[in-house]
């Protein structure tokens, strides 16, 4: 090695050790905090899975098809949804599918619950959004494995850390789209609200949110798809679901299992995408 490089590498900055010290500090002092979050999430999510598994699969399939019809008013879609789900039942992947559905819907709900208010705040605070934007970029572009480890350290293995990494990955979408939706409400509409004496809150509820609703709904669809794309990674840190058989198939080079599980994920993706396009009429 040349002398300069030698000089540079002669003393290694102990980032790793510092980081570990930091996490040790967190885990020893705030273990109760992270543990209670993880335990709470696990109880709720596992409880939901157990509850749904009590229902006979055919009934649940019918219910989901009914939901598809209710949301999109399309018989064709409802039928396709039912067939797709029955195929999954047929492949004996129903339990994994329910687990994945709970994880995806839970993570999407959490992402929306976090993302929409942040998006609204950012839309009214351009300066804040300028600081927020690089963080959102980071959340979406950073390889997931990078933050998998800290999350693992803090929350352990299981469905809770799975949900948390999924939310980290998916929440930027509703934030961005809510921000976009609200900042692009036509000025005359805002002014109509102001001219008739709307308070800030009335303006938000009666003008901005309704006007931004289609964009926010697009954010929901995107968010659900992003959550679904995390199932395999969530499986790596112990979340049950369709990711599990995929990981198992990868490890044991079990091609048939991999194909079955993969296909089930694709079917689920299509179904979720179609059902969640609320108000766009895309399914008609």
């Amino acid at each position, binding site marked *: 090695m040349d002398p300069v490089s030698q000089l540079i590498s002669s003393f290694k900055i102990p980032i790793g050790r510092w980081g570990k010290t930091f996490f040790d500090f967190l885990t020893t002092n705030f273990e109760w905090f992270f543990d209670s979050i993880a335990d709470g999430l696990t109880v709720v999510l596992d409880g939901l899975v157990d509850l749904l598994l009590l229902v006979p699969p055919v009934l649940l399939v019918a219910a989901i098809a009914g939901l598809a019809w209710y949301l999109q008013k399309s018989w064709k879609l409802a039928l396709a949804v039912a067939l797709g789900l029955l195929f999954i039942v047929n492949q004996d992947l129903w339990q994994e599918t329910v687990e994945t559905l709970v994880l995806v819907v839970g993570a999407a709900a959490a992402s929306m619950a976090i993302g929409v208010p942040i998006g609204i705040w950012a839309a009214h605070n351009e300066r804040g959004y300028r600081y927020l934007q690089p963080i959102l970029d980071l959340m979406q572009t950073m390889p997931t494995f990078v933050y998998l480890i800290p999350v693992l350290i803090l929350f352990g293995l299981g469905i809770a850390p799975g949900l948390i990494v999924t939310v980290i990955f998916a929440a930027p979408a509703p934030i961005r789209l809510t921000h976009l939706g609200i900042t692009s409400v036509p000025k*005359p*509409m805002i002014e109509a609200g*102001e001219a008739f*004496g709307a308070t800030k809150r009335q303006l938000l509820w009666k003008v901005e949110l*309704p006007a931004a609703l289609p964009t926010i709904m697009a954010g929901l669809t995107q968010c659900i798809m992003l959550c679904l794309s995390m199932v395999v990674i969530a499986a790596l840190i112990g979340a049950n679901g369709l990711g599990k058989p995929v990981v198992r198939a990868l490890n044991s080079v079990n091609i048939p299992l991999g194909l079955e599980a993969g296909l089930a994920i694709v079917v689920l993706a299509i179904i979720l995408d179609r059902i969640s396009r609320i108000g766009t009429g895309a399914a008609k």
Partner: protein
Amino acid sequence: MSAAVDFKNVDIVFGAARKEALALVDRGATRQEILEKTGAVLGCAGANLTVNEGEISVLMGLSGSGKSTLLRAVNLLNVPARGNVMVKDGDRMIDVAACDAATLRHIRQTRVAMVFQQFGLLPWRTVAENVGFGLELSGVPEAERKARVERQLKLVGLDQWASKYAHELSGGMQQRVGLARAFATEAPILLMDEPFSALDPLIRTKLQDELLQLQAELKKTIIFVSHDLEEALKIGSHITIMEGGRIVQTGAPEDIVLRPANDYVRDFIANVNPLSVLTAWNVMRDRRDLDHGEDGWVWLDRRKTTRFKIDEHGLVAAAERDGKPAFWVSCADVEAQPEETTQVFWANPGTSLKTVMLAMHRSQTAPVALFDDRSRFVGAIGVRDVLSAVLRR
């Protein structure tokens, strides 16, 4: 008459360098100079205007002259950098530029309503819900709201369309919804920013007529922005002309047409047909300015073709045309009169210039006399007076 809105030295500046811009405004700099030196855009400067109750006051000017800017100061959509915008609230005048948020909301909810050029309707609401929007914001109970909305929809002839969405309606209908929404709050002051510009000419004329009809009934105070002088003259009882953010002339429509303050205004009115604005009153020569002969005889025209003998009550006792006795007839039925040289027409001050000209034509260029409502002689119009009014010389 009392003022409903009073602008006092209102300056509005867009952009950051406000102080510097205002300093330039004080030195009378033009918008261009202010933009070059400070980067700030002058919205309007030194605007003084009183809008009386029940009046339709029209703001006119070329694009960018600051009409909308001034109008929008009334409900503080634009915030004045300096000056006061007094708005009548019951028996008080409130300076919206200086009041607190609650007062401003009160003004916006109950005193000042607005109609927008692009309608500003909310597409996810039905027509009825749009009309009730203002009432909803001010917390009017649902039952009362429904009743008032229904009444407004009837008024603008849209009761059949209440449950449709705005985009299902034509432009003219959408603007009727906008009007109904503004009327629904029962605010006495109405701001209209080119409300009919986005409509095709036929619909525009129709809505103008409807507005005038409604106004005759509702007696609102309306500030109306327009860049169409025909429109302004048709509906305005007062016209203000703006140029480059400043008011260049304000007055009654015929003042503007007869006595344009500068070349900008003159250009503006160049294409206006004065016949559609002017009345006999605007062009007559006062009786005191006429040539008086002996025995109470007065010459009606400069050429001395026609004269009246006026008695001590101001009534006409005798008439003479070209040295021969003549009789005097009302302009009102000018069409029914034969063409004769022995008759002289008379009109009231409010008679349109067009009718006066018709009378001159019928009587072979005899002057037209003006009587007040008690038949007293007040003045006369000769051919020359008409020509100079029409040619604006």
